[in-house]
């Protein structure tokens, strides 16, 4: 499993576009929104959490088809199916490596982008924590969508249509954690539910994704 993780990470780095593209997209979203809304820092700081979360979500969706489609096309996925590692574990590892290559970089640069949007330094902590806890769920939920559409040519748009509604709970609770701390309200409950959503997604969804992959590889 560790070998598989290493392979996925190396492929993402060497094939190009793994780390960089998602981050660049995130940056562009954060730059474009103030251009659309106007330079008023007060308004921007009010919507900053939403922009960061929605930006991270979109950046994540754009890179989802990379999770399975390349391996599906060159037959690696079929080999993995016959390998001693259960397919559920393969899905988990692949979601995790997707998170490391797209989710984690987004989380790391989010405080800097938060500054651009007029957040106070003291508030950056919660934006960072909420994204750190929420983005793994985005990857594993996205892996389910990627597994569904792996056999479809040009399934990118369909993938977004399928996955984005599934992101609703994560987005609501994640953004809520950060917004509540900005308003100086206790964000304990939102934080707990966000963590619960992520953990539940990671423990249950790989089974559904593996089932779907088996159907697609039939």
């Amino acid at each position, binding site marked *: 499993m560790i070998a598989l993780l290493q392979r996925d990470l190396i492929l993402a780095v060497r094939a190009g576009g793994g780390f960089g593209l998602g981050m660049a997209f995130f940056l562009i979203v954060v730059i474009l929104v103030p251009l659309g809304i106007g330079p008023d820092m007060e308004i921007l700081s009010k919507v900053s959490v939403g922009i960061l979360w929605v930006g991270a979500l979109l950046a994540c969706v754009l890179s989802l088809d990379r999770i399975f489609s390349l391996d599906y096309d060159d037959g690696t996925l079929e080999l993995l199916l016959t390998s001693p590692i259960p397919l559920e574990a393969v899905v988990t590892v692949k979601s995790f490596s997707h998170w490391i290559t797209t989710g984690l970089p987004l989380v790391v640069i989010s405080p800097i982008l938060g500054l651009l949007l007029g957040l106070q330094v003291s508030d950056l902590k919660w934006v960072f924590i909420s994204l750190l806890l929420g983005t793994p769920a985005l990857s594993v939920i996205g892996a*389910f969508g990627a597994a*569904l*559409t792996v*056999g*479809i040519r040009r*399934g990118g748009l*369909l993938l977004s*249509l*399928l996955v*984005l*509604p*599934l992101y*609703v*709970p994560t987005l*609501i*609770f994640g953004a*809520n954690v950060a917004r509540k701390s900005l308003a100086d309200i206790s964000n304990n409950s*939102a934080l707990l*539910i966000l963590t619960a*959503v992520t953990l539940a997604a990671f423990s249950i*969804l790989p089974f*559904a994704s593996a*089932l*779907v992959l088996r*159907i*697609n590889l*039939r």
Partner: protein
Amino acid sequence: MSLWEYANPVKFLNLSDKVLPFFAGFSIIGLAVGLFWGFFFTPDDYRQGSTVKIIYLHVPSALMAINAWFMMLVASVIWLVRRHHVSALAAKAAAPVGVTMTMVALVTGALWGQPMWGTWWAWDPRLTSFLILFLFYLGYIALWSSIDNPDTAADLTSMLCIVGSVFAILSRYAVNFWNQGLHQGASLSLDKEKNVADVFYQPLLFSIFGFVFLFLTLVLIGTRTEIRLRRAEALRLRKNRE
């Protein structure tokens, strides 16, 4: 004699052929009585005026929008467990009906909200979760139409329906957490005190009855069409081979 006998397409077609006229008739009677009674023979509400009559379309369509998804969920599980093709096709046929019901509920809600709340749309939990349900329907229908192999399509959409249901329920409670509502609580309740007043309730029941049978009629027609399409496809393939 068991219910599963009707998983046989021929038996299903025979049975549905017999019950369809009755279902259609029930639907027409329910809708005609409910809507005419509701629109012309009920008093105006003392605060809402005549806009209260939107209830005869709004409540039944919202009810059926959710029930249609639930029916798809049950049909999907039956398909995955027992591999009855009729079940998968019924789920497929129910989706367009469900999405239409969702649309009707959203549009009538907007038309009702404008005079009552002073706004077409509010980011209220109920309204938002209906919009999300609408997106789930769209994704489900899009997935069906983009896969060629019918069995794979049925399997994948069934899985999407099951996972989607979990997330739909989660979203329903998440939006409650996110915002307090403008929409009132449930209009229908077994508790007499909370229930809508009797003058409005009786025609509403007819209307709901009509909508239920309208849904059943449309789904049966849709399923029969799908079965025949499947048959035509099989015939075409057989001919090509010869």
